[in-house]
């Protein structure tokens, strides 16, 4: 498989050649995205930060074994995801919402005029963020890897070690569920005013 290169590649090579200080560039680039994913997976901010730190240390130790057949970010987020899963086994977070049964199809996208425009307003940002955190973990994780880590479907499947079809399903359903819930909240707030 040909090596995959991106802006992280020269930095990774520098670190592997002994320029350990360059690793801080990788930390600076990925820390907030990593934190966003970790908080969504682990739940608690403090624990999430510990897990992110641990993931960076693990990545540093394992960097010599990084073959370059994927992007550094894909490889690193797999380490982070595994670190989060390990943490969750030790201290599980409160039970989250279960995934809808396979047969349940979410309602189609509404075309009610005017409602979706409100999604873009500043006040809706908090609601969206909150609802994102309330999604079933499988949906939230897939959406975070798509939007925050900017991974492609195949890369998400690689990080989560799940079939590509499951990734698509989780993204589609997660997005639909998120949209429906946010629009419900908007409607409720409009009624209560």
């Amino acid at each position, binding site marked *: 498989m040909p090596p995959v290169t991106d802006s992280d590649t020269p930095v990774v090579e520098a670190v592997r050649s002994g*320029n350990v200080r360059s690793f801080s560039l990788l*930390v600076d680039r990925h820390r907030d995205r990593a934190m966003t994913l970790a908080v969504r997976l682990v739940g608690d901010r403090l624990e999430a930060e510990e897990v992110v730190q641990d993931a960076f240390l693990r990545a540093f130790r394992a960097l010599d074994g990084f073959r370059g057949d994927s992007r550094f970010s894909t490889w690193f987020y797999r380490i982070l995801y595994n670190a989060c899963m390990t943490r969750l086994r030790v201290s599980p977070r409160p039970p989250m919402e279960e995934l809808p049964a396979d047969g349940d199809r979410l309602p189609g996208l509404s075309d009610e005029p005017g409602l979706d425009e409100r999604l873009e307003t500043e006040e809706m940002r908090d609601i969206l963020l909150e609802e994102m955190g309330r999604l079933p973990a499988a949906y939230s994780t897939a959406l975070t890897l798509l939007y925050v880590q900017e991974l492609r479907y195949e890369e998400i499947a690689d990080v989560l070690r799940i079939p590509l079809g499951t990734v698509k399903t989780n993204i589609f359903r997660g997005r639909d569920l998120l949209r429906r819930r946010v629009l419900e909240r908007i409607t409720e707030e409009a009624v209560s005013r």
Partner: protein
Amino acid sequence: MNEDHCTPEDLHMLLDGALSPAESAAARAHIASCPGCASRYSALRRLDGAIRALPLLTVSPGFTSTVMSALDPVMPVSRPFRFFTWVAFQVCLISVLLFGLGVCALAGFITPGGEAPGGIGETSLAMLESALSAGVSFITSLLGNPAHAGPYIITLCTVLVVLMLAPLDRIFASKLTHR
């Protein structure tokens, strides 16, 4: 793709750039002529834009420094080569070997040019002792006849130089990356 309308999956994949160029072109052509699909796709794009606009969660100030300071006790992926450390190591190694040979010679364990002991199947021990006795020959000839020291010193220096030059590629690679 459905001939009449885009499926929800098609719309999601179009949004994420996951359709093939041909599928993408067909979907866009359909959306351009179908108000229903256009409305659904537009709704999806608004949600997409809203999610993308969400702020990232940030780590504590000083996070990077904490990680970098925690790297110290961790074995780095490949330590930079230290030239003088390497030379010192080689000198120490040779000195220890010579000292060991000298001690063996003084203690009388090995005689210069002595025969390897025969023995009860201890071939490796015999080989070791042969090697040691050859080394002791070297020491005694060096001490007994300084005129013969030249070739030995040259040989010793050659071995040292080869040992030191072997990792030169690492020395240069390390210096380049430190620029």
